[in-house]
C-alpha cells in the first residue's frame, strides 16, 4: 500500500515539475497512475478528492512548492504546477573544508531537537553533489541541547506570531502567564532565551526557555502580527544582565596551611606565616565573598575588611542557629 502511494507521489512531483501549464485535478487524475477513478460516480470521485488533498498536503509538508493557479482566464477550476526554480536547491559550491564544517555542524544536534532537520538538510547537500566526510573533526566537540520551547518559539519568531506561555522563576511561588511578540531566540553562555516585546509589560523583555512551564507555547493570532525593531541586537538584551564583574575590593583572610585550595587559586598574594597563610582576595560584593568563605568553615578566617568579616560572622551565627534548632527538634521529637 505504502509503495503504491510513494510511487504515486513521485510521479505526481515529476508530472507537476514537467508542466508549464497549471494542471487541474481532473487532468492530473487522467495522467498520473494511481488516481484512476470514475468521475461520474459520486463516491468514487469523493474518494479521489480526499486522496488528492492528502497527497497535496504531504507534498507541502515536505516543502515542495506547489503553485496554484488557472491555466487561462476562461478556466474556473484551479490547477497545479511546480516551478523547477522554486523546487530546486540552488548550487552550493562548498570547498572540502567548508563541507567538513557543515557535516560537523549537523552533528551538533544529535542530542537535541533539530537532529532530524539537520540530517535531512545534510542529505540534500549530499544530493547536490557535496561530499561530507563523516569522520571529520575540528578537535573539539560542542554538545548542544535545547529546551522543548525552542522549536515553537523559533517558528513563532520566524512567522512573527504572538505567543503566550506560563513562566516560572525560582524565587516566585506560582507561574505567571505572559504574552510576547517574539523577536528571536538567543543562546547566551549555553542557556536559551527568547527576546521580544512583552505585551503585558509593554516593554522589551527576555525569558529563559527552561523556565517556560512544560515548554508549552500557545500561538495567539495570525502570522505577520508585528515587526521586530529594525537592526535589533538580540544578544544585547540578554547579555547586559551578566556583564563582567569588577573585583575592585581586597579582602585578607587567614587560611590553614594546605587547606582552601579553591581560594588560593584566585588569591592575588599568598604569604606564609606561623599561623597559616595570608591570602589577599579580590572581590566585588561582600555578601557573595562571605558565602564563599563560609563554605570553608574554620579553615579560613577573615582578617579584613570589617564588612566581609561581619558578613561572615552573621552568616555563621544564622547557620548554627538553624541547624541547632534542627538538632533540638530531632532530640525532642
Amino acid at each position, binding site marked *: 500500500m505504502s509503495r503504491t502511494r510513494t510511487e504515486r507521489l513521485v510521479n505526481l512531483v515529476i508530472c507537476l515539475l514537467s508542466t508549464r501549464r497549471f494542471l487541474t485535478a481532473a487532468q492530473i487524475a487522467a495522467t498520473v497512475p494511481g488516481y484512476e477513478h470514475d468521475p461520474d460516480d459520486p463516491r468514487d470521485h469523493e474518494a479521489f478528492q480526499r486522496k488528492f488533498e492528502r497527497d497535496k498536503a504531504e507534498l507541502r509538508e515536505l516543502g515542495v512548492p506547489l503553485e496554484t493557479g488557472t491555466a487561462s482566464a476562461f478556466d474556473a477550476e484551479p490547477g497545479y504546477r511546480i516551478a523547477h526554480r522554486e523546487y530546486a536547491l540552488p548550487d552550493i559550491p562548498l570547498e572540502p573544508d567548508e563541507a567538513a564544517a557543515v557535516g560537523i555542524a549537523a552533528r551538533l544536534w544529535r542530542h537535541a531537537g533539530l537532529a532530524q532537520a539537520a540530517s535531512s538538510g545534510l542529505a540534500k547537500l549530499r544530493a547536490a553533489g557535496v561530499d561530507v566526510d563523516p569522520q571529520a573533526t575540528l578537535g573539539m566537540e560542542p554538545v548542544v541541547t535545547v529546551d522543548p520551547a525552542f522549536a515553537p518559539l523559533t517558528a513563532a519568531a520566524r512567522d512573527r506570531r504572538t505567543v503566550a506561555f506560563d513562566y516560572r522563576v525560582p524565587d516566585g511561588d506560582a507561574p505567571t502567564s505572559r504574552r510576547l511578540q*517574539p523577536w528571536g531566540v538567543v543562546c547566551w553562555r*549555553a542557556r536559551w532565551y527568547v527576546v521580544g516585546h512583552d505585551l503585558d509589560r509593554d516593554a522589551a523583555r527576555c525569558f529563559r526557555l527552561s523556565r517556560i512551564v512544560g515548554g508549552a507555547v500557545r500561538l495567539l493570532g495570525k502570522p505577520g502580527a508585528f515587526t521586530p525593531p529594525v537592526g535589533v541586537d538580540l544578544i544585547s538584551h540578554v547579555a547586559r544582565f551578566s556583564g563582567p564583574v569588577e573585583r575592585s575590593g581586597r579582602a585578607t583572610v587567614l587560611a590553614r596551611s594546605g587547606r582552601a*585550595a579553591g581560594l588560593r587559586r584566585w588569591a592575588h598574594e599568598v604569604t606564609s606565616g606561623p599561623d597559616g597563610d595570608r591570602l589577599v582576595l579580590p572581590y566585588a560584593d561582600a555578601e557573595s565573598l562571605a558565602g564563599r568563605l563560609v*563554605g570553608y568553615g574554620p579553615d579560613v578566617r577573615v582578617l579584613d575588611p570589617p564588612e566581609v568579616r561581619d558578613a561572615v560572622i552573621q552568616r555563621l551565627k544564622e547557620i548554627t542557629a538553624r541547624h541547632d534548632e534542627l538538632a533540638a527538634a530531632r532530640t525532642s521529637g
Partner: protein
Amino acid sequence: MTRPAQRSGGAARTSADRLARLLNLVPYLLARPGIELSEAAADLGVTERQLREDLELLWVCGLPGYGPGDLIDMAFDGDRVTITYDAGIDRPLRLTPDEAMALVVALRMLAETPGMANRDAIERALAKIENAAGELADAPVAVRMPGDSDRVAALRGAVQRGRALRITYYAATRDETTERTVDPIRVLMVGGLAYLEAWCRRAESMRLFRADRIDAMVELDEPAAPPPQARLHDVSAGIFRPDQDLPLVTLRVGRSSRWITEYYPCERVEPDPGDAAGDTGREWLVALRVTDLGWARRFVLGLGPDVTVVAPPELAEQVRDRAAAALDAYANLPPDGAPEPGAPRSGAELVGGAGPATPTGSH
C-alpha cells in the same frame, strides 16, 4: 476500506521519509555516476537492500506517457549504478525552514565556540548556506559563547598533536589542587564550558577536566596512550549525571537560594509541606545527589543562612559543627590573633572527578 491518512503517525512518518529519500536519491546518484551500491547505502544511512528497493521503485516512475523513454532509467555495472535518465528530478528539493535553521544555527554555534579550529572555513560555509537558503537563513536565533579561547585552543592543539600532558588541576569536589599526567582524547564544549576528556594515569580512569580549572599544563614528549579500556563519557544528558548510588542530600531552601534548582540536577523539588509561613518566605524541599559529602558541606555552608540540611543527619551535624568551630575562632581571637587549634577534618571522601560544578553564571 484502507485510509492511509488514518494510519499511525509512525507509518505516515515513514512514508514521508521515504518520499523525501527517493526525491533525494536521483540527484545524489546523478552527481556520482558509477557509485558502488554499498558506498551509496552507507553514505545515505540505509541498508543496501533498502537502497535496491528504492531504485526498483524509481525505475517505474517517470514522465507522463510512462513509456520506456519517459521513465527514470539507470545502468548497472556489477554493483555500480549510474542514472541515465532523471525525468526532471535533477536537483534536490530546497531546504525547509527547519533544515535551514538547523544548519545555520549549528554553524553559528561552531563559529562562536571559543578556540575552535578552522573558523575561517566555518564562516565561509555559513555564508554559502545562508546564501543558498535565501530568506530562510534569516533564522531568528543569535548565539554567543564567551570563553577562554587561548586555553581551549591550547588543549585542542595538544589533542591534535596526540601528546600526553602534565596538568595542575583544581578538583572542586575535594577542594584540592593536584598534579596529574593525562592522555588527552578530545575537547568537549558542554553547557558553555570547555572540558578536556582524558585518561588520568593517577586515577587510572577516564576523566573530564574543566578547562578553567586546569591551572597549568605542560605538553610531554611522550605520545598520548589511553589504554584500551578507556571509554568516552556519554555527555548527551549533561556532564554530571547523578548516579543512584551517590548520597542523596535533602535541603530546606528559602526563597533567595531557590536558584540552585536551576543549576544542579535535582531529584525532587517541592514546597515544604511542614512550612506554614504562607505566601511569603515559603520554603522548598530540594533533594540532590552529590559525589562527596565534603563538597556538600562546603556547598551548604556557602549557600547561606536560608538553607538547612534535612538529611542525611551526619551532614547536618558537620555543617553545624564547622559553622560553630568557625564562630569560635572569631570569638576567641582578635582579628590578628594567635594560631588556632586544629579542627578535625571530617567528611567521607568518595569518588573524585566531575562533581557538580560551582555555578558560574549570575543568579
